[in-house]
Structure formats: structure tokens, C-alpha cells
């Protein structure tokens, strides 16, 4: 292992970001349900209350609207709260505080106030969980002016993006794929690391097809790209979006200008999902390079169907490969 690097899973990497940001800045604090003594139901805030005390790592009463609503108030005073919502499926109970207030205070007060705050929440399927514990709702937040929306795809990005989100002067919704929490470990630098928000990353270079993915779907895209290379001799470029809003339109256009074909993969339902915006952005930025329509591989337009049917709903490599072959043959 490289010096100054440690192999961490995504839970530990997120915990490292929180720990280092709290150490760096006494205005950073954490609040949410079970985040203190218990360290969060996924252990992302493990041991932070012991290190920083119960005034900085707050076991709040069970009420999402007030968790976000009080965080708005704290941020208006100059604190930098990081809220944890236990599951993204419960965040509709604080959606009004996010949309009506966190996203708008800078505009409403004409720059006098801003909400430097992060709302973290686990999202997505693949963990055999019940309704409201497996959904992907990034499209709602990505649509709101005044917000930023981030979804890391692995430990190193998660750590660097969370640190950047905490330092960002605007409110950031930070989605963490449950399926990735304890999945692959990555080498993460021990020293603080930041990644800029709003920038996508080329995860794999290729010249035949661009697959746009983020969060847990990056693994699916990688698996599909391996098969396409081995069986079809296709060189797939994978774009890891990382930030959903503001979306990196420049990177999308540049990649498709090179490949001429694009495929978007996401866990959210298809209609009005991020894939629509990505497709429009590609059309606006690289229309003359397009050799085929932009293809979307997504969950279907159904409410979460229960984990016994989840495999049929959430995109997997087979669906991505089939869609890629269709796009390539167009």
C-alpha cells in the first residue's frame, strides 16, 4: 500500500471526512436520528460523539422537518451543520424545509444569509430492504434551484466530496448508495482530500460509446464495459457524474463528441429522471456528433416494487449490455 494511504470502505471513508472536517472547523456539527451514541444506523458517524461531545454530535428527536429546519437556523447563524436523514425515503418529511428554505435563503435575503449545510442520506436499492428504504429520489433535489446534489461512487470520492460539500457555501444534498457502504474498499489518503463539486470524472476511457452513471450504478457500468470489451471488442468510456447538480455539461459533451453514442444508467424511475436532463444536455452540446439516440437504462415508472422484485426493476449489467448493443447497432 502507498505511504499515507489506508484501505477503507465507504462508511469509514465518510466517517474520516466528518472527523477531519470537525477537527478543522469548530462550526461543523452533526445532527440526526441515532447519530450520537449509536453512530448512525449505518455507523457513518461512529465514535464522533465520543470525540466531539454531544453538543456537536446531536442525537436529535425523531423529526426530519425539524432536523433540517433547525439546521437552516444554525446555518443562518454561521454554523455548518451536517444533517443525517436515516433513509432518503423519509426525506419527504423535510422536503419543504429543503425546498422552501435551505435552497432559497441566499436569494430571499439577497446574499445577507446563506445556508452552508449538508443533508446526507442513504439512498438506493440492492440491500433487500423494505419500502422507503430502497428508493432513489435524486431527481427531486437536482431540480431545485439553489441546491447542489452529489452522489459519490466509492470510498475515495465519497470522502473527498463530503469534505468539499461541508466547505461549500451553498446547501448540498449528499446521497450515499447503501449498496456501496460495505462494498469494495479503496485506498484513501490519510491527509484531507477534496474533490471539486460540479465535475464529472472519466472512470474508463473509450472511443465507441459513453456510459453515464453515478453512485451504485457505476459498478454496473464497469461490469457491462468489461463484457462489451471481451465479447464485442467495444471500447466503452464510463463517465462517473459524481455531482448531479450542477451537472458537468462540458464533460458530457466532450465525451460524446468523441464516442458519438451515449447511454445513461440510473436507479431512479425513468420519466423526468436525471437521464432526461443528461440526454438533453448531450443533444445541446454534441448533437452533430451523435450517431444514435441517447439510451436510458433506469428503474421503471413504478413505486418501489418490494425487494423480492427489485432485480427486475433496478438496472443490471445485462440490461446495460443489451442497451449498449442496440445503441451501437443503430
Amino acid at each position: 500500500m502507498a505511504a499515507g494511504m489506508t484501505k477503507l470502505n465507504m462508511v469509514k471513508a465518510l466517517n474520516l471526512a466528518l472527523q477531519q472536517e470537525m477537527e478543522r472547523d469548530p462550526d461543523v456539527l452533526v445532527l440526526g436520528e441515532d447519530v450520537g451514541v449509536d453512530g448512525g444506523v449505518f455507523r457513518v458517524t461512529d465514535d464522533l460523539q465520543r470525540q466531539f461531545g454531544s453538543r456537536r454530535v446531536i442525537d436529535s428527536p425523531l423529526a426530519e422537518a425539524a432536523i433540517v429546519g433547525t439546521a437552516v437556523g444554525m446555518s443562518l447563524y454561521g454554523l455548518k451543520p451536517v444533517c443525517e436523514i436515516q433513509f432518503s425515503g423519509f426525506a419527504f418529511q423535510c422536503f419543504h424545509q429543503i425546498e422552501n428554505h435551505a435552497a432559497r435563503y441566499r436569494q430571499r435575503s439577497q446574499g445577507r444569509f446563506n445556508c452552508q449545510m449538508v443533508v446526507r442520506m442513504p439512498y438506493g436499492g440492492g440491500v433487500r430492504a423494505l419500502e422507503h428504504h430502497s428508493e432513489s429520489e435524486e431527481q427531486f433535489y437536482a431540480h431545485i434551484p439553489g441546491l447542489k446534489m452529489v452522489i459519490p461512487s466509492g470510498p475515495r470520492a465519497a470522502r473527498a466530496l463530503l469534505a468539499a460539500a461541508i466547505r461549500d457555501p451553498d446547501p448540498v444534498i449528499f446521497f450515499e448508495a447503501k449498496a456501496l457502504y460495505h462494498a469494495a474498499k479503496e485506498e484513501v489518503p490519510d491527509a484531507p482530500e477534496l474533490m471539486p463539486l460540479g465535475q464529472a470524472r472519466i472512470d474508463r476511457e473509450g472511443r465507441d460509446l459513453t456510459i453515464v452513471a453515478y453512485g451504485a450504478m457505476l459498478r454496473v457500468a464497469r461490469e457491462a464495459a468489461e463484457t462489451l470489451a471481451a465479447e464485442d471488442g467495444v471500447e466503452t468510456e464510463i463517465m462517473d457524474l459524481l455531482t448531479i447538480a450542477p451537472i458537468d455539461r462540458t464533460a458530457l459533451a466532450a465525451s460524446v463528441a468523441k464516442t458519438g453514442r451515449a447511454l445513461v444508467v440510473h436507479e431512479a424511475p425513468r420519466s423526468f429522471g436525471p437521464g432526461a436532463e443528461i440526454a438533453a444536455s448531450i443533444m445541446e452540446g454534441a448533437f452533430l456528433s451523435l450517431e444514435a439516440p441517447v439510451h436510458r437504462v433506469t428503474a421503471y415508472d413504478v413505486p418501489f416494487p418490494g425487494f423480492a422484485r427489485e432485480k427486475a426493476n433496478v438496472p443490471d449489467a445485462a440490461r446495460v449490455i443489451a442497451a449498449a448493443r442496440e445503441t451501437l447497432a443503430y
Partner: protein
Amino acid sequence: MPRTILEPRIKIEHLSILDADGNLDVALEPTLTPEELRQLYRAMVLGRRLDERMVRLQRQGRIGTFAPIKGQEAAQMGSAFTLRPTDWMVPSFRETAAMIWRGWSIEKMLLFFSGHLEGGQPGPEQHDLPVCIPVGTQMPHAVGLAYAVQYRGDDSVVMAYCGDGATSEGDFHEALNFAGVWHVPVVFVVQNNQWAISVPLKKQTNSATIAQKALAYGVPGIQVDGNDVLAVYAASHEAVDRARAGDGPTLIEAVTYRLGVHTTADDPTKYRSDEEVKAWERKDPLTRFKAYLEKRNLAVAGVEADVDAEIAAAVARFEAVGAPDPLGMFAHPYAAPPAALEAQRDEVAERLRGQAPPRSGGEGEAPVPMRGQRITRR
């Protein structure tokens, strides 16, 4: 096992010091200097006269829809008067008198109700949040501010306002609960004006008082005669002192009455009787306070003319403000605009280039209704 009484000590007090007939409970009379009493009266008169002027401005199409305060001057001024400038005020949308006392300029309030974003910007030294329109959603913000005050070890107090309708909202209850658990320096002031648009209090809650809702959260609650500025002041002073001393939050229910319309787009004759309104007009907070001041030989003559001149000058300044630069809408959504937003701004700038400059003022534009209102012409 028998049933046992767990909480026999619950009590709800109602505080009244100066009644509608001018009777004064001398033992409870707060200690306010003659200068403070004059300031308080002037701020209440300013609130009333500005309110009347704003209704006329709205009828003439010179400002948009707004929520008049007529009848609630004592409820909001008796409470806001107890704050230091360094304390925080968290308004809803019917606190014009208190907001002006706190330092918002009249022209800024007029700009706000004319749809100018500039009307929502507090001065750099002001510890005041702008108007909050979604009912009750400001209450958790006040609790967060109070948490931050406590966290930093400052000695400020946060005062948050809402109406009786807001006490049905989840955010109201969540805010009280968090405030109780965190024991933070916040004072909640409910201006119970009896009507949430067309819905009377008895359809809003089955509780005998709003004050008692505090008790469920382990927070002291008190009901005051909200048209008695001395009682509102006394109760607020006690609550602010308690908060500043580190002894936690308080809920004050100020029982008052909205003498006017819910907003300028509302027609209250549809849902309440003239007799009811007339009965409350006899309890007018201004008449009562003026009589008290006169009894104490505190000159109040000339206050109306004085505030009218201040209002006229502010209206003139407001009307001199031209139409806002459309590009201003791109200035503050983010600290630094994303590239795509800059492109949208450029698109608008391009479209505006070559167009005639916008005419000044917003005259002749139809007022836009707020939440739940119909446009009526009376």
C-alpha cells in the same frame, strides 16, 4: 393497580393588566420609562397608519397583496419591544409593525410586498430573518438560531412569531419539542387573531388555549390579553429574561383579533359577522393604550401627524424606485453561479439588449393572490 395523577401541577395563566375599559392592575404594571412608553406608542401608531396606507396603495395597484396587521399592534410591539438589537427576530408574514421597529425600513417593506427581492434583505447589522410565507415553517429556524446562540456561548435571545393557524402545522410542534429538549433561548409568540383566513379557532384546535400546547413539550406557556400592550410586554419581558438566563424557551399566546382582511385578496364578510368585528373594535389596543398614557400625562398629541410624515416620505422614496433589473434574479441563487446558470443569465441579457429600458414603477399591474386567496374587488 390504581390510576394515579402524574401531573397535578399543570396550570395555564391568563395575564391582563390594562383592560378595554382602561382599568389598570397597578400591582402588575410594568416599569417602563416615559420615553419607552412614548416609543412603544409611536411604533404602534406607525404600524396602524402604515397598514391603512398600504391597504390604499394595494387598492390603487401600487403594491401587491399583503397581510394587514390592524388590531394586532399590541401583540407584536409589546413582544418585539423587549428584544435588544442583538437579539433575533423570526417573523411570519404579519409582523409589519414589529419588523419596522426592528430596523426594516418602510420602503423595504413596500418593495417586498411589490415583489422586489430587494425587500427581503436585512441590513448588515440587523439580526432579523426576512418574511416567511409557508405557514409555521419558520419556527424550526428560530430553534436552530437559538441552538447556535447557545453553542457559541452568546447571550442573545430568539423571538419567533406565528399565528393561530400555524399551531396546527407539524413544524410548530416539532420546533416546540426540539426547543424543549435542547433548552435553548427562544420565545415563541403566537398571535392568536381568531381566524386563519376563513377558519375560526374552534375549528383549528380542540384545546381550550394555545398556551397549553407548550406544556406537552415541557415548556412554560402563558396566555395574555394580546390587545393589552402592557400585559404582552410583561409576559414577553419575563420570557426573554428567562431565556437569557439560560432557563429555556417559553410559548406566549397573545389573544388578539385581526380587525381587517386576512390579506388584501380576502373578503371576510363571507365568513364572519359585523357584530363580531365591532365587539373587537371596542377592545382596540391603541385606544386603550392612548387612554393609559393620557392618564399618566404623557403627551401623545402630534404622533399621528409625525408618523404620517414619515410614511409619506418613505412612500415617495419607494415610488422613486424603478422596475428592478431582471438580471438581478441571477445574482443570489448560489455563492458562485454554475456555468449553465451564467449561460441563462447571458441569454436574458442578450434578449434585453436593444429593448427599451423598463418603465419605472409597477403601476397598473394586477395584484397576485397569496396562498389560499381569491382576488376580490370591493
